[in-house]
């Protein structure tokens, strides 16, 4: 009548081995503590970090202006048993995420210290340099699946260029990351030297949401709630897409590739339709544009999928994917953050095997040349 099953599973009882072979375009590693950076950070800046902390344009040190759902924005099951914050333990990340989900490549996105938004530009540059070195030493060199990005703060353009050149020489970084919230919209000419280098080095530009650039995160002003602020990720990316396209960045840099990370994709069809419509009516205002905005978007921009939209009717998600274009989408999980998307269950709409392969692997492999 009763039975306790406590024996190990036989091989034929185990779930089938995963065949996902995914590229995860958004994996967040974390520092155990600032001490991790000491090996890469000059004494002067170690002392600065210790004594003055971070220089952001938001209140509160080392936290966000809005409480974000869970401690350190993390999945409750992602705290490593060895201690330290979620994302700080490679062995646990491998065991919980990379191995079971069969992640072939994971692209590291470092958000520690909101280093893009540091207002002391020299301090920001020192920290970016340290984090860039730390990504290789602590992550890529220990697990070659994990790919590092060159983090730079674009408001110190000269410092950013130096760091891009330094890192690019190693041949180990797969993209250049800049802030989605800089002092000016990203299409502005002051930032073009970075885009010129990205194109020359054939490194995609990765733009992950987050940080505070000193402006309210929405066009409507400062939000009151986290749930409201969360919407601003999409607003911000929509504004930057328009800025980059209309200011002529893809026209000026025809081989530049730009990846927007965690900004959603449901808003893209409408944004592109509107840009095209207004371009037809007002093209004499922007004669530097030779093609319709939708053509630039189609040739230069990619968008990661998480947090995926969950319309009440699954077929609406299907329509969105078709309108954006299946070739534009790159799977991302956002591990270990609370709004993580599981590649097996996040897409609540049918996709053919060929479509899945594009979103989960070959689109990213083409952009990043894996």
């Amino acid at each position, binding site marked *: 009548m009763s*039975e306790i099953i406590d024996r190990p599973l036989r091989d034929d009882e185990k779930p089938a081995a995963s065949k996902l072979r995914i590229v995860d375009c958004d994996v967040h590693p974390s520092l155990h503590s600032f001490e991790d950076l000491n090996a890469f950070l000059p004494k002067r800046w170690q002392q600065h970090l210790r004594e003055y902390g971070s220089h952001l344009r938001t209140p509160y040190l080392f936290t966000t202006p809005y409480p974000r759902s869970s401690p350190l924005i993390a999945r409750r099951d992602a705290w490593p048993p060895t201690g330290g914050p979620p994302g700080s333990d490679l062995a646990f990340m491998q065991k919980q995420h990379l191995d079971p989900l069969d992640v072939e490549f994971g692209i590291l996105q470092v958000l520690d210290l909101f280093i893009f938004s540091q207002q002391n530009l020299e301090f920001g540059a020192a920290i970016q340099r340290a984090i860039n070195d730390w990504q290789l030493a602590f992550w890529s060199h220990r697990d070659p699946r994990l790919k590092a990005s060159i983090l730079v703060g674009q408001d110190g353009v000269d410092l950013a260029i130096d760091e891009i050149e330094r890192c690019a020489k190693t041949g180990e970084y797969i993209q250049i990351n800049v802030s989605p919230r800089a002092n000016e919209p990203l299409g502005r000419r002051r930032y073009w030297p970075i885009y010129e280098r990205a194109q020359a080095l054939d490194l995609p530009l990765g733009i992950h949401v987050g940080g505070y650039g000193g402006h309210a995160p929405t066009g409507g002003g400062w939000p009151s709630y986290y749930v409201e602020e969360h919407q601003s990720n999409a607003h911000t990316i929509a504004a930057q897409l328009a800025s980059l396209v209309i200011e002529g960045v893809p026209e000026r840099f025809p081989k530049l590739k730009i990846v927007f990370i965690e900004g959603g994709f449901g808003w893209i069809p409408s944004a592109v339709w509107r840009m095209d419509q207004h371009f037809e009516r007002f093209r004499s205002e922007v004669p530097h544009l030779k093609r319709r905005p939708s053509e630039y978007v189609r040739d230069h921009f990619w968008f990661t999928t998480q947090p995926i939209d969950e319309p009440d009717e699954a077929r609406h998600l299907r329509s969105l994917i078709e309108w954006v274009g299946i070739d534009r989408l790159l799977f991302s999980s956002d591990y270990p953050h609370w709004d993580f998307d599981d590649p097996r269950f996040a897409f609540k709409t049918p996709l053919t095997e060929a479509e899945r392969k594009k979103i989960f692997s070959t689109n990213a492999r083409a952009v990043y040349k894996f």
Partner: protein
Amino acid sequence: MARHIVATTSEIPPGGNKVVEVDGRDIVVFHVNGEFFALLNRCPHEGAPLEKAACVARLTSSEPGVYERSRVGEMLRCPWHGWEFDMRNGQSWFDPKRFKIRSYPVAVERGEDLQKGPYVAETFPVHVEDSYVIVDA
């Protein structure tokens, strides 16, 4: 459905849980205020392991600045996206018509009622006097 003995009551402390595998299913057994609840260890949204869920209370508010906590420890908050469920029946709190976690009946029974052993040991009478346990041997 067959009955499965999955744990002793002392194995699962109040506020804790234990994951057991029953016929290929991972089931998580929670202990809340002396009661036990069993649910499939998988959120119906994206499959998060519910053993890592926060056991929270029902929070209601009659007016701004005033709140009441009830059913402390009986509401599950998924470790990933924070979806909440009623531990007693697996019902989703925010969308009860569409989502539910599979739940299983749980009983607590004394070991001697479940299985009479074939062996009888020599026994000694025990008396409890105040807070001392005294064994007559």
